[in-house]
């Protein structure tokens, strides 16, 4: 009887150790995802900050493209709305994540339309001011790609750990605290990239 008690106590202590280790590991991985999310937010914010300047510059030379400007302004407003909702919980909530991505992809599309319009105005394209803005926009879009990719990598680490044994056994007790992370999908626009004809 006493022996059985010892075994039960031993198993209990062992389970406790494993549980603690797992929990701490999940916390660490969750923190990495959160940190990478902050990077993603930063680069998207950087792009949003760039938009007014870009639109102003293009507007000066291409007055008759009002529809394109309106499209960019609307897309940017939607991005702003999502940001106001509170970005911190976007990582936790797949639906909010989806909304965030859709808004940002909308701005991507609007901006690529704007840059396509510029092709019609060689004088504008040749100005130093526009070229600098273009360099900034390209750099920012590239940063977005990089940080999104890294976010997916961190989220994958988290989700893999979450789904593997024995972690998956404990996840039931912990509820939503360690919900699976959503991934960034390839942009719809990127999948059907418009061919640039020279």
């Amino acid at each position, binding site marked *: 009887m006493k022996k059985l008690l010892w075994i039960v106590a031993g198993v209990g202590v062992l389970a406790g150790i494993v549980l603690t280790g797992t929990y701490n590991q999940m916390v660490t991985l969750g923190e990495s995802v959160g940190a990478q999310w902050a990077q993603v937010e930063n680069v998207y914010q950087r792009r949003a900050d760039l938009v007014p300047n870009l639109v102003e510059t293009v507007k000066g030379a291409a007055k008759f493209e009002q529809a394109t400007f309106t499209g960019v302004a609307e897309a940017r407003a939607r991005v702003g709305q999502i940001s106001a909702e509170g970005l911190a919980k976007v990582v936790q909530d797949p639906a909010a994540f989806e909304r965030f991505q859709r808004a940002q992809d909308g701005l991507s599309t609007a901006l690529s339309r704007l840059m396509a319009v510029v092709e019609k105005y060689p004088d504008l394209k040749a100005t130093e001011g526009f070229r600098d803005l273009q360099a900034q926009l*390209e*750099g920012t879009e*590239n940063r977005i790609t990089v*940080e999104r990719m890294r976010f*997916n990598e961190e989220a994958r680490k988290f989700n893999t750990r979450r789904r593997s044994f024995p972690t998956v056994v404990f996840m039931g007790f912990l509820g939503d605290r360690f919900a699976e992370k959503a*991934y960034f999908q390839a942009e719809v626009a990127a999948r059907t990239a418009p061919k640039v004809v020279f």
Partner: protein
Amino acid sequence: MPARMALVMALLVAAPCARAADLPPAPRTLVTDQAGVLSGAVREQIEQRLAAHEVGSGQQVLLWIGRGTGNAAVEDWVARVFAAWRVGRAGLDDGVVIFGFVDDRKLRIEVGYGLESRLPDVTASRILREVMVPRVRVGDWDGAARTGVDAVLKVLAGGAGPATEQGRDRLELSWWQIALAAAAALLFLILLITHPSLAVQLLFTIAAGGLPGNRRSGGMGGGGFRGGGGRSGGGGATASW
């Protein structure tokens, strides 16, 4: 259905990692010319300049010329390579790599996180467009490399960072490191009293080999490159000709 979606997602996410094997290994020198477009003298000259810059500022600046990036987009490929080589110092992320892809007809400057404000995209883009591309276009790779590196170094020299890795390390002794050093000193004193000859021998061993943790990060002074743990986030610019 969710399981299948999860599998598809996992494949999508895992795909970029599978390509990591195609990346070139970290170079041993600051200047690498796999395409053979630089003359030996110029390569040596730039290597010296970059080595001197690293000694003076601690910043790692690399020039890497290759044939192309295969099927991968230049920016994507470069970001992965930068991460794999770990250019720049850990924590400071103060590395810059100037890439040239002869067959792809592309140039790229990739800037580490820590130097993004010193060398912003606009500046990188201007260096490529105004300094390097016109020379590459007429086949003058020597000139493009020399003037491009000069321009980048000039921009980076615009402000002073922490001079060397060691200067920085010295400031960062935490309390437990001090406690550890004190404990080691105490143990040594005890050893000195109980076994004097052994203690002296130990002292010589340490003095001759140096403690493993205190070695310099290599590659400094005599040229050569060893990644210091720096990262980049896609900052910089690309140009083609």
